[in-house]
C-alpha cells in the first residue's frame, strides 16, 4: 500500500492521493483512462496521431488541475472527456490557424487542400492501412455531423459515442442537465434529418469527403473553413 492506495483504488481515492502529489495515483489513473481518452480524442479529430498527443496533454492537465477536478458519481471520466473535447477543439483550431496563415502568405483563399492535420503525413501510423482506413471513415462521419450546431454535436457525441449519462455530460461540458436534455433532443431531431447522408458504411474503405466543401468536425474551431 502506497500513498493510502491499495488494490484497485477508486477514482476519488486516487484524486485525494494525487492532491498530495502521489505518483502512483497518477499512474493508476493513466492506466485506467489512457485508452478511453485516446479513442475519444480520435473520434473528435479523426487522427490517431492527434489523439495520442491529446492523451498526453489531457493527463498533464489532470495533474495541473488535480485540486479542482469535478467527479460524477465518483468517476473522473466525464471530466477527462470534457478536457479531451476541449483539447481536440483546440487542435482543430490550431490546424485551421496554421492553414490560414500559410494560405494568407501564399495569397490564396483559405482552404484545406493540404496540411489539414488529418492523417498527418509525419505520423508513422499512417503507414498502417487499418489506421488510415479508420481516419478516413471517421473524417467522413465527422463531416456528416458537421451539419449540426457545435453545442449539439458535443452533447450528441458524448452520449452516443462515449456513453455518458445526462449528469456526466453536464459535468463534462460545464452546463446544466436541463441544457443537456434540450440540446440532445434537438440534436436527435437533426440527426434523423441526416438519413442517407451519413458517411461511410462500416468496414469499407472509401475516400474521405471533399473536406474543403464539407468537413466540419464536431465541437471544433475550424475557422475559415466554411
Amino acid at each position, binding site marked *: 500500500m502506497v500513498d493510502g492506495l491499495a488494490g484497485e483504488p477508486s477514482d476519488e481515492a486516487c484524486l485525494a492521493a494525487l492532491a498530495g502529489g502521489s505518483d502512483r495515483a497518477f499512474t493508476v489513473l493513466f492506466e485506467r483512462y489512457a485508452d478511453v481518452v485516446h479513442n475519444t480524442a480520435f473520434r473528435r479529430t479523426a487522427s490517431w496521431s492527434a489523439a495520442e498527443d491529446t492523451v498526453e*496533454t489531457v493527463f*498533464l492537465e489532470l495533474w495541473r488541475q488535480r485540486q479542482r477536478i469535478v467527479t460524477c458519481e465518483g468517476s473522473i471520466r466525464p471530466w477527462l472527456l470534457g478536457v479531451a473535447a476541449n483539447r481536440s477543439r483546440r487542435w482543430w483550431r490550431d490546424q485551421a490557424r496554421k492553414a490560414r496563415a500559410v494560405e494568407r502568405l501564399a495569397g490564396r483563399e483559405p482552404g484545406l487542400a493540404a496540411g489539414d492535420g488529418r492523417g498527418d503525413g509525419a505520423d508513422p501510423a499512417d503507414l498502417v492501412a487499418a*489506421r488510415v482506413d*479508420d481516419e478516413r471513415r471517421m473524417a467522413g462521419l465527422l463531416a456528416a455531423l458537421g451539419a449540426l450546431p457545435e453545442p449539439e454535436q458535443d452533447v450528441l457525441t458524448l452520449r452516443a459515442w462515449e456513453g455518458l449519462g445526462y449528469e456526466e455530460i453536464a459535468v463534462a461540458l460545464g452546463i446544466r442537465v436541463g441544457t443537456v436534455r434540450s440540446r440532445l433532443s434537438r440534436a436527435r431531431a437533426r*440527426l434523423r434529418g441526416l438519413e442517407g447522408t451519413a458517411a461511410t458504411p462500416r468496414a469499407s474503405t472509401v475516400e474521405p469527403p471533399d473536406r474543403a466543401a464539407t468537413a466540419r468536425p464536431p465541437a471544433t474551431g475550424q475557422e475559415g473553413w466554411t
Partner: protein
Amino acid sequence: MNESELRDLLPDERPLPTGRRREMEERLMQQIEAEGKTSRRHFRLMVGAAAAIVVGVAALGVVVVGDDGDRGDGGDRSDPAASPDDRASTAPLVELVTVPRDVMTAVQDERNQATTWLLGIEDVLEIPVDDATTARGSTDTAVAGLRALADADPAGAAYGPALDDLDGLAAVRGDVDADDGPRNLSNTGPSQEVFDRYGQVLTGLLDAQAAFVATIDDPELRDGAEVYQLVLRQQELTTTLGREALLAMTSSLSTGSAEVADLSRLHELVRQGGDTLAAAADGTPYEEVTAAAVGELDASGFLPAVAGLLEDGTMNIPDMLDSMDSVVVGLAAAADEVEAGLTGTG
C-alpha cells in the same frame, strides 16, 4: 439516422500503441516531477526573493501556458442563428480582429526568450520557445500574416502604426544580440528595458486593434470584438503587473518612489480592466465566459497580493504567482471562447 446507427459507423477502438504508451507515461512523470513535486513552488521558496527576477521571467511564460489551459467548459459560444452567408460577409473583419492575437502570442514568446537569455537562464527555465531563431521566425511569420491581411482590406489601415512598431523589433533584436553585459541575474537592467520595449510594441498592437474594432459597423460583431480586445489587453496587463510586482520585491520599495507609483498605476489598470471587461460583455453572448474570467480576478487573490506589497512591502511570491496563473488561464479561456464565437466555430 439514430444514435445506434451513429455508433455503428464508428471505427473500432484501438489501444495506445505500447511503445507510445510507455514513452508518454515516462515523459509525463518527468514533467510532473519537474513542475510539480520538486515544484516551481519549492524552487521559488528555496531560492527565495533574490530569485524573484527568475521567477518573474518564468511567470511570463504563463501567458502561453495559460493559452493552452482547459476548463472543461462547453457553454454556448456562438450565435447558432448566424447564417453561413452572414459569417462569410464578416469573415475578413473577424480575421482583422483575431489575427493580431497570433502576433501577440508570438511577440510574448519572443519577449520571454530574449529576457530569459539576457539573464542567462534560458536553460534553467521552461519557456514556450527557447531559441531566438525560432521565436523571431514565428513573430515574423505572424506579422507577415497580419500585414497581408491588413493590406488586402482598406479597413486594415488601422494596423499601420502597429505594423510600423513591429518593424521596430529589428532594433530590439539587434540590441539583445549586441548586449555585452553579464548573462546572469545581475543583468536585470537590460532585461527590463527589453521587456519594456516589447511591451510597448504589444500595447501599440492592442491600441490598433481597439481602433479597428471601433470602426466595425455591425453592432453585434463590434461588441464581441470589443470584448475580445479587452480580454487580450487584460492578459497583457496582468502579466506585466505580476512581473513588476516581482521585480519590486527585489528592491526596497519606499513610499513615493517611482516603482511604487508604477505598481500602483498598473494595479489600478488591472482592477479597472476587470470592471471594463465585465461591462463590455454585459448583454453579449460572451457575458458568462467573461464573468468567469473576471470572477477569477476577484477570487484568485492576485490583486490583494499586489496591494499587500504596496502597503507594507511584503508579498508571498508563490501565492501571487499561483493567483496570477489562475487569472491568466481564465482570460486565455475567455479569449478562446470569444474567438470561437466571432469566427462562428464556437
